[in-house]
Structure formats: structure tokens, C-alpha cells
């Protein structure tokens, strides 16, 4: 069937509405509906990826109108990959979320699922669309749902974090909208391919330059690149754990995707790197972001908050890679979208399990966790190693490409920042491991018979956590395949 591209996005939307409606009849109905919607969406995304690999880019015309007039979905290799990533992670997270949603937002579970699905719809739409303005609308859906979700989390701090997020998020989205306006003024079109075509003739225009800067600023604010990151740590820390598990890996990564999409498809790498001279500045910004993220993470006493700063740091990786101006850097950035999504997801899954059992995740409260929750910790360790960049986890391989790209571009400061951030992450995570590993038995040796009682999270959470952690290794080992069959053909 050739309606798959639309169905990827529409299925979760429909499921969201049905789940919302079903809740009025029977609260318990909404979860299976949500699950089904995301399962279907994942299936469609997988189909589309296969189709794209097999037969090239898919163009899907909404309402049947030809591109510049109507809205078109252009699914190429990059989209398809990110679509599968988004829907897959959202689906897996939903499986793992059932217990924690019941625990955290018990009386509002149905509304939670509805908003969750709308959020995923937004992300999928952002990824699939080939229209600049449609992108804006979908960004707003994701933002609005995240505002609501963040406020739902921590009773005291949630609303404040959320309102801050609203202000900064609106500035970001509005900048993007303005940028699109500038482009529209010069091109008269909104379709990405069409705009790109027209732009290639008017590269010298200051309006295009400002449009470009505005779009980038907007997206950077949305992805929380370093000086514009202030909203992220609080927002992600205080949101309900079932939501932070999906927003942390996906939101920023999808925004990075948008940035790459704008750079590659709309403005063209040639324009960015040969006509403008902003690349150096952007790479420096990314370098600073990496270091600042790492250093700020060191100062945190709450595990979840620490991880959010690591996200800030990882964003620097991707931005730097994309702005490196060579194929290796861009490959690294794209590969890191996938890898970082998986790693962050695995980390937050583990955090979710801990929160489910411990209710708190301030670092001192994690004592003896290796004994109590061995499986959770195993997943956590794997993901952490991947963030540090230990082979054969996937984090190493994207770092590999990023480093190569940095060397090729002569951006030694960026390479140094990558290495330093690896070290910082190592310190960070081993600090956590030490707490979890040593503190339990501080009183002295325990004999082989004194087995620590295991108090693990529910099985569904553990299975998802295990699956994702394993996928970190599998994706790492097959990163050559991903690069050769998806990323390189896309960049050609």
C-alpha cells in the first residue's frame, strides 16, 4: 500500500483521539489503543525504511496536490531512519511505561497516553514532512505537549520549569517561523525542494542569510545548544519519568535532524560552507557546548539532572559534526542521532526503573543498587559505557567518525573537546557506579551466603531496558552497515 508515509504520522494521531475518547467510557481502554497505534506506526515506519532502501525516495502528496502547491512528504533515507527510530523508541517506551504511569499519574493515565501520542505524532511529523511551515506546526505540537507533560511531573517545580520552557520554546519556534518568513519573502515557496531550487539562484541576498541564521537560532534553541540550553535540565528533570524517557532521547535528536535537513536539503552544504563563513563559529560553539555540558554535569547531585546535562553535551557532538563541513563529520552527526537516541533512552529507562523502586534518584540514595537491581544496573552500565565511548558500544563508532571529521577539517579543538568529554563522562559515570557498587557493604564483608535481596522493577520495564541496552551493542557493531547503506547514499 502506498499510503504508508501518511499512516506513520496519522496512526498515532488517530490513536490519540481514540484513546482520549475511550477514556470517557473505560479508563483501561486507552492503554491498549495507544499501544496498538504506536505498534502500527512502527510497523509502517519499518516498511517505509525498507521501501526507501529498496527503491529510493518516496514522495507522498497530501490531498493529492503537486508539491509546491500542496504539502508533500519526502521520505528519503535519513527521514526513514529517524522515523523508525522515533516510532520504535516511542513504542518501546510505551511498553515500559505502564507501571510507572500508573504509579505517577494514576488518575490521569488516559490523558497521559493521549498527550504522549500527540507528542510522538508531532515528532514523526517533523521528521517526515517536506514543507517548511508544516514543520513549524508540528514543532509546536511537540512543544505544547511537552509543556503539559513537564508540568505534570514534579508538583512543585514542574510548572515553573514548564513555564520557562514555554517562554524559551516560543522564542525558538518564533525565530524559526521568522526565518521561514524571510525565506518565503525571497522565494515565494514553502516546499523544501522548491525553496532549495530557488535559493540556489539568490545566494548573495542578505535576507536569505538572515533567514538562515534565524532558522538555525530557532532550531538551536529548540535543541538546547549550549548558551540556549537553560530550559532543558529543569524541564527534563521535573517531567514524569515515563515522559522524560521519551523526550530526552527523541526531542533534541529530532531537532538535530531538522537542522541537518535544513542544511542539506534546503540551504545546501555548498551555500553554507562556501558562501557563508559561519562554520568555524558554529564548531567553536559546539566545542564550548560539549565542555560546558560536561562540566555542569559534574556539579549535579541528582542522577536525572546529571543526565540532562550530558544531553546538552551530546548536542554539541552532533552540531559540531554537522558543521564540520566534510562528509565524515556529517556521517558522524547522523550516526550519532541514532546512537545517542539509543544510549539516552537506555539510560533513562534505567533511571525510570530506579525511580519506580526508589522514588528518588539523588546520588546518595543509590547506595547498593548493584545488589538490589542488578539487571537495571547492567543496562545502565552498558548505556553509560556507550556515552563514554567504549567499543563495541555504538557511542564509540559515532565518536570515531566525528573525530575523523574533526581531524580532516583541522578542527583540533573539537577533537580535543570530544576526548575530554569522554573522560568527563567516564568520571561522571564511575562516580555513580562507585556509589552503587561500594556503599552497600560499607559495614564490612558479607559472606557468600548473605545474599542481598533483589528488588527489581517490573518485568516489562526490565525487558525493554535489556533490549535497548543490547541494541546499543548491536547497532554499534553494525554501524558500518548503517553508514554504508543509509547515511552515505543519503549524503551523495
Amino acid at each position, binding site marked *: 500500500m502506498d499510503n504508508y508515509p501518511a499512516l506513520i504520522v496519522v496512526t498515532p494521531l488517530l490513536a490519540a483521539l481514540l484513546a482520549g475518547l475511550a477514556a470517557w467510557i473505560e479508563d483501561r481502554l486507552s492503554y491498549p489503543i495507544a499501544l496498538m497505534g504506536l505498534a502500527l506506526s512502527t510497523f509502517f515506519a519499518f516498511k517505509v525504511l525498507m521501501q526507501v532502501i529498496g527503491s529510493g525516495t518516496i514522495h507522498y502528496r497530501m490531498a493529492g496536490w503537486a508539491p509546491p502547491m500542496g504539502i508533500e512528504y519526502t521520505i528519503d533515507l535519513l527521514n526513514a531512519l529517524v522515523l523508525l527510530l522515533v516510532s520504535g523508541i516511542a513504542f518501546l517506551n510505551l511498553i515500559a511505561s505502564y507501571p510507572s504511569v500508573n504509579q505517577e499519574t494514576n488518575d490521569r493515565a488516559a490523558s497521559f497516553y493521549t498527550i504522549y501520542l500527540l507528542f510522538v505524532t508531532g515528532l514523526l511529523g517533523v521528521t517526515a514532512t517536506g514543507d517548511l*511551515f508544516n514543520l*513549524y*506546526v508540528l514543532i*509546536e505540537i511537540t*512543544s*505544547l505537549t511537552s*509543556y*503539559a507533560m513537564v*508540568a505534570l511531573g514534579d*508538583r*512543585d*517545580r514542574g*510548572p*515553573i520549569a*514548564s*513555564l520557562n520552557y*514555554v*517562554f524559551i520554546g*516560543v*522564542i525558538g519556534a*518564533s525565530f524559526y*517561523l*521568522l526565518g521561514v*518568513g524571510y525565506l*518565503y*519573502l525571497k522565494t515565494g515557496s*514553502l516546499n523544501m525542494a522548491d525553496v532549495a531550487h530557488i535559493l540556489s539562484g539568490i545566494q548573495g541576498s542578505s535576507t536569505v542569510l538572515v533567514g538562515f541564521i534565524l532558522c538555525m537560532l530557532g532550531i538551536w534553541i529548540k535543541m538546547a545548544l549550549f548558551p540556549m540550553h537553560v530550559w532543558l535540565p529543569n524541564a527534563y528533570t521535573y517531567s514524569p519519568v515515563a515522559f522524560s524517557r521519551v523526550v530526552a532521547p527523541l526531542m533534541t535528536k529530532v531537532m538535530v535532524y531538522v537542522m541537518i535537513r535544513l542544511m542539506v536539503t534546503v540551504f545546501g552544504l555548498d551555500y553554507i560552507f562556501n558562501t557563508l563563513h559561519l562554520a568555524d563559529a558554529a564548531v567553536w560553539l559546539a566545542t564550548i557546548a560539549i565542555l560546558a555540558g560536561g562540566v555542569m554535569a559534574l556539579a549535579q547531585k541528582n542522577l536525572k539532572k546529571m543526565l540532562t546535562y550530558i544531553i546538552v553535551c551530546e548536542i554539541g557532538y552532533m552540531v559540531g559534526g554537522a558543521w564540520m563541513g566534510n562528509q565524515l563529520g556529517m556521517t558522524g552527526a547522523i550516526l550519532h542521532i541514532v546512537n545517542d537516541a539509543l544510549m539516552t533512552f537506555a539510560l533513562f529507562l534505567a533511571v525510570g526503573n530506579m525511580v519506580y523502586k526508589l522514588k528518588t534518584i539523588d546520588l546518595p540514595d543509590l547506595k547498593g543498587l548493584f545488589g538490589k537491581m542488578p539487571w537495571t544496573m547492567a543496562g545502565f552500565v552498558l548505556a553509560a559505557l556507550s556515552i563514554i565511548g567504549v567499543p563495541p558500544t555504538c557511542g564509540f563508532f559515532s565518536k570515531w567518525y566525528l573525530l575523523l571529521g574533526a581531524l580532516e577539517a583541522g578542527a583540533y579543538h573539537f577533537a580535543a573537546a570530544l576526548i575530554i568529554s569522554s573522560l568527563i563522562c567516564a568520571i561522571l559515570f564511575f562516580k555513580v557506579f562507585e556509589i552503587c557498587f561500594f556503599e552497600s557493604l560499607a559495614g564490612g564483608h558479607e559472606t557468600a551466603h548473605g545474599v542481598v535481596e533483589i528488588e527489581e522493577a517490573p518485568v516489562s520495564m526490565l525487558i525493554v531496558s535489556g533490549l535497548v541496552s543490547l541494541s546499543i551493542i548491536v547497532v554499534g557493531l553494525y554501524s558500518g552497515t548503517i553508514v554504508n547503506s543509509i547515511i552515505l547514499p543519503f549524503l551523495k
Partner: protein
Amino acid sequence: MTDSLPYIVAKYNYWLYVILMMIGLYAMIAKNNLIKKLVGMNIFQTAIILFYVSIGYKTDATIPIIQNAHGGHDAHAAVIHAADYINPLPHVLMLTAIVVSVATFGVAMALAVRIYQRYQTLEEDELRMRISEE
């Protein structure tokens, strides 16, 4: 002066939108009261809408509703000149943008009420104080 007047006149709408946007942005960054910030946010968004609407404007053209179309199916027999009608596309975009902005506004207001319920204040500095006290 006589030379620059047409230049100013030709683009004043664009310039004023920049001023409005700066007002809005300033309020969002510098104001202490959350509600004031929200007002700034709205001004900021309307400025962008003004910008888009200005893009769509065409001199000597009328609103984008085709006249004499009520006559029925032979309407398309009459030739439609594009120059007679204002560009409808920015209007469409801005309808969506207005909707988005009112949605955001509603949610933000709800958040403000929640914050007030919890902390009994909407001033940022006082909020910061209350949080650090806890």
C-alpha cells in the same frame, strides 16, 4: 530627506514589526512578572504575524475572495487575474500561527495559575527565593 522618504515609506511596515518584536522580546527576557512575560510573548508573536501579513500585501489588489463566484459553475469562465487579489498564502499560515499562539497562551496561563496556587506569587525573583528556601 526627500530621497529617503520613499525608502522609509516603502518598508515601514517591516521596520515597525521589528520594533514590536523587540518590545515583545524585551518583555520576555527582562520583565519580572510572569504574566507580563506572557504579554510580551503575545506581542512577539503578533509581530511575526504582522510581518507575514505584510509580505502578503499587494498594492492595488483586493481581499483574497474571488468576486462574482456565487453565480455558479460558469464562474471559472471569467478570467481571474492574479494581480487583482492579495496573496492568500501568508494569511493561511498566519491563521495557523494565531491558533498556535492562543493555544500556547492558554497553556501558559494555566501554568501561571498553577504556580500561583503553589507559591502565592508570580514575580520571578520571589519565586527563586521561595525555591531556594525550601
